[in-house]
């Protein structure tokens, strides 16, 4: 999956000479947490987060009279250089950037550092939900299989034979045994019993749902 498929293209921005007050208003008005700061030709020169702006704001416990700090230019508190990504980067790769750099927003730029979009950690989580398929109707099955070529089509053929549509497939390493993998299927049926029986019959080890009495219990 590519960044351009999940990025937002309508980005709220400010110029470096805007005031901190304007940034605060934008954050509140749009319920956002980051504002890229752009120069000429839309190119990204900095970024501010809601935390940067709050650090510069008076505490809610102080009297509201002294607000001149909010009249400083935004460029006085913005972070730079900015870590940016490209529309053709993989979503999987940028997840690693979020994790390693401990940040929550990545502006998307093209040639000349020109801003074309934005991806936040919330967009990443939304993508995760889509990838795992937990947002649509399904039953969940987990099986432990030997880690060898051709195993996945063998298992999915069993689902196909029962005309059961697959919502998502995840492959995890097996924690206790490197020679095995855990396959997690979300399948579009309310009655997974026929599939479960078929999987058992074919000799696969069913990890979940483990409440259905199997031959070894």
């Amino acid at each position: 999956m590519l960044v351009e498929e999940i990025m937002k293209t309508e980005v709220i921005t400010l110029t470096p000479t805007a005031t901190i007050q304007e940034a605060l208003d934008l954050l509140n008005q749009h319920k956002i947490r980051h504002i890229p700061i752009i120069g000429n030709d839309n190119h990204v020169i900095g970024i501010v987060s809601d935390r940067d702006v709050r650090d510069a704001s008076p505490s809610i416990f102080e009297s509201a009279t002294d607000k001149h700090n909010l009249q400083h230019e935004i460029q006085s508190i913005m972070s730079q250089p900015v870590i940016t990504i490209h529309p053709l980067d993989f979503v999987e790769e940028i997840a690693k950037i979020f994790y390693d750099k401990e940040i929550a927003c990545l502006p998307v730029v093209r040639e000349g550092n020109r801003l074309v979009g934005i991806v936040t950690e919330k967009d990443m989580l939304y993508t995760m939900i889509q990838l795992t398929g937990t947002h649509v109707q399904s039953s969940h099955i987990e099986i432990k299989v030997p880690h060898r070529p051709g195993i996945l089509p063998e298992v999915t053929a069993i689902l196909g034979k029962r005309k059961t549509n697959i919502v998502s497939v995840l492959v995890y390493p097996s924690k206790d045994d490197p020679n095995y993998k855990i396959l997690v299927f979300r399948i579009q049926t309310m009655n997974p019993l026929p599939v479960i029986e078929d999987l058992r019959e074919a000799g696969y080890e069913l990890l979940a749902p483990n409440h259905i009495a199997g031959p070894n219990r």
Partner: protein
Amino acid sequence: MTCTAKFVFSDNLLQYHFHEDHPFNQKRVLLATELLKATGTLPEDRIISPRMATEEELKLFHDHAYVEAVKQASQRMLPEPRATEYGLGTEDTPIFPGMHEASSYLVGGSLTAVDEVLLGRATHALNLGGGLHHGFKRKASGFCIYNDGAIAIRYIREVYNLRVLYVDTDAHHGDGVQWAFYDDPNVCTFSIHETGRYLFPGTGNVNERGIKEGHGYSFNLPIDAFTEDESFLNAYTTALTQITAFFKPDIIITQNGADAHCYDPLTHLCSTMAIYERIPLLAHQLAHEYCNGRWVALGGGGYDMWRVVPRAWAQVWNVMHNMKPAKGELPTSWLDKWQKESPVTLPTHWEDDPSIVPVIPRKEEISEKNKLALQQLLKYTAKPSDQLKLY
């Protein structure tokens, strides 16, 4: 407390039939009806026939295109790729001849029940053929074609303009009805179900609370696999009592799926008949307390069709009609007639022996998790000043 109840039934409710091996079998309605007749708690004059819902009524909830697709499928005229688009012709909802008409009778049965109550001809009404809560606006799913509960609620809103509390005790999340009224503050939905971790449809988390104006009017209580009677009833009674006090409905619609029983092959809850006595008793009590008695009950899931569903559903009627569940031995005439057909030994009593529940090693942990889920839910019904009392 004086009340009269009506029972919706005719052979038309039995036509909703996918195929012999399908777990959803409407013979359950017949088994429950005959059990009641044999018990002597269902006088003929309480039985009313379901009408067939009109297409306009179906479209109170479903899309025109979807109704057209079901009508075509009903005549075996729907090409496969289009069927798939509408969730038809799958293992869960296979196509069968006459499916449109059969489904329209289930919906009509629920509308008949609603009219009986709201035109003042009865205080309560029961349509065991209804409760198909997984039906979506333009998609069949989870054994459901038309969503009679959602249609009946729209009908109540349009014709009678009353505020509706929908209570779903099926072991599966009542997703179709929840999403239908997710943005509607005049319809409050409450579903208690096995957590969606492994079980279809997977939704029904406690944080699904509604959107826009409807925010705060959707309640979910997901309970753990292997939950037993005591923990189920504790959580359910507290939640429903508080939700009803919070919402103060004009009418209560209950979906009485009977698949939370330890015998049920599709779910992993571990209850006994004890909950199927308490569930209708509580609905009855709250309907009288808040709604002048107005209560419409529907059927739903339930996949141990011989040992569990007939008794569970008959008790809904016993409470409606007699104000108390039946006790003691089941009528021998019913047992003699159906034991011949049943592949399993039929139970002899209305109550279950507690020994049918397997020993659950994680019982404490499960009860604790259910209690936590309940506290999460109650946060939204308690006044801020009462929040501390929850802990």
